[in-house]
């Protein structure tokens, strides 16, 4: 073996070794509390940047029918397995009631017909998944702002929590999500009951799913059963405001 090839080998090993140590270091940082708290500063800065620029005024882009994806992909749960949900689905959701409670003056219990009687909105928007894919579809549903106006939130209410019928866990934890009042009262925030001019299919969240168009897909809870207005997210699930948030994803998913 000549000199230069052994030197090359040494160099290669040195680079591999140093690289390996650095990568292991990064992975250890990812598991340390102080470092992940530091990384989370970015979410606060993103939220501050949003407040400085957007809030209720800015609108998500809307598209034309020619832009629509051939079919709207199902992601997460495709068919909730709970007997209660299966019973509702078997009866075409005629027994479905959306419960609205928590910090409101007037708790509500709404059938699908009640929801369809609320002021509505139709929008062709793009769904951006946190994984990186996107799809464009037409959504039609009740304006959440109109529903909240009926329920009359107390001044202390800061968030709307969505309790769902589906579970992504083996232990049966039901999906939950939350948004703030800014997003809840946004013009494009709707509880969608139609997708592409047909009743919302089970695979996409029947009978009702949330649309929060200026955030990522995981915020848009499917199979919504109950709305709860709260003043703090501390007692919601693991305390971070949503199922995926409790797995480390950002609560503010505008990025």
């Amino acid at each position, binding site marked *: 073996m000549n000199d230069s090839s052994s030197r090359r080998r040494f160099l290669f090993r040195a680079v591999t070794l140093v690289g*390996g140590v650095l990568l292991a270091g990064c992975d250890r940082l990812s598991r340390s509390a102080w470092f992940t708290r530091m990384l989370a500063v970015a979410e606060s800065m993103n939220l501050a940047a949003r407040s400085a620029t957007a809030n209720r005024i800015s609108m998500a882009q809307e598209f034309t029918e020619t832009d629509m994806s051939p079919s709207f992909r199902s992601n997460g749960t495709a068919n909730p397995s709970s007997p209660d949900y299966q019973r509702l689905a078997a009866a075409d959701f005629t027994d479905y009631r959306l419960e609205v409670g928590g910090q409101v003056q007037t708790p509500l219990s709404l059938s699908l017909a009640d929801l369809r009687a609320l002021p509505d909105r139709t929008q062709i928007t793009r769904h951006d998944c946190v994984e*990186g894919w*996107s*799809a464009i579809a037409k959504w039609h549903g009740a304006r959440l702002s109109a529903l909240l106006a009926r329920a009359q939130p107390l001044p202390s209410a800061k968030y709307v929590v969505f309790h769902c019928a589906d579970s992504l866990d083996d232990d049966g934890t039901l999906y939950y999500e939350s948004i703030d009042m800014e997003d809840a009262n946004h013009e494009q925030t709707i509880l969608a009951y139609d997708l592409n001019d047909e009743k919302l299919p089970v695979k996409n969240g029947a009978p009702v799913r949330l649309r929060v168009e200026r955030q*990522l897909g995981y915020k848009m809870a499917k199979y919504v059963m109950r709305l709860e207005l709260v003043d703090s997210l501390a007692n919601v699930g693991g305390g971070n405001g949503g199922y995926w948030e409790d797995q480390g994803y*950002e609560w503010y998913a505008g990025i």
Partner: protein
Amino acid sequence: MATNDRLYYRHTLPIRVMHWINVFAFFLMLMSGLQIFNAHPALNWGKSSYNGKPPVLEISSSQGSDGKAIGTTTIFGHTFTTTGVLGVSDEDGSPTERGFPSWSTIPGPQWLAMARAWHFFFAWIFVLNGLFYVGYSIASRHLRRDLVPSATDARSIGRSLKDHLLFRHPKGEAAKQYNVLQKLTYLIVIFVLLPGIILMGWAMSPWLNSLWPGWIDILGGRQSARTPHFVFAFLLLAFVFVHVFEVVITGLWNNLRSMITGRYVLPPDDRHE
């Protein structure tokens, strides 16, 4: 004696600090970006992923006849077997289905939430550092004096190209200045690739999309933006490789010292020695 005469203060403190912050942030962004890409290892062109057109690039895996996993990469309809690096690679010693291999991603194992946390934290540092750099370079005249090509430069492009290909490097007084190809490359990186990759990154954010609905259609749409974001990242990586190569062959320690202490020893000009 000559060494002291030829010692030249090349990089000011702010430039040196910002250079190393940039090195650090760039690699963390690149590697966390590859981990994010792995969550959906495909690139499309259009307003959404599902627009009736196949992806321009897709990394996937399948089962071979012998039961072993095969990694494949498809670019513009041409499929290549890339087992070991793309599609299927070793993670903790066993073949795993994943886009980019664990040695190229932060975190190593599949972990999208954590990769996003790294990516967006260092994005703030990267962007703020870049803004300070541009502001400083204009205010200190670094941009005008050192980076914008002069009329003489414009005439010497051909010669500079030949010098690079023959690995001939400027000596003496001439080594105080960047050569014309170097200037143009830095300008393209600073004013095309870096702002471009940041803009393409912003184009993927639903909130930033909403600030001026439809602005991302200038870039071909949201799903399109993800493609040049990825391509620009690799162009920047290519720049880093060429940059480090030039640093090594034109005097590793001298160049490294000039970016750490600021001092650069001018290579002796043969005619005067």
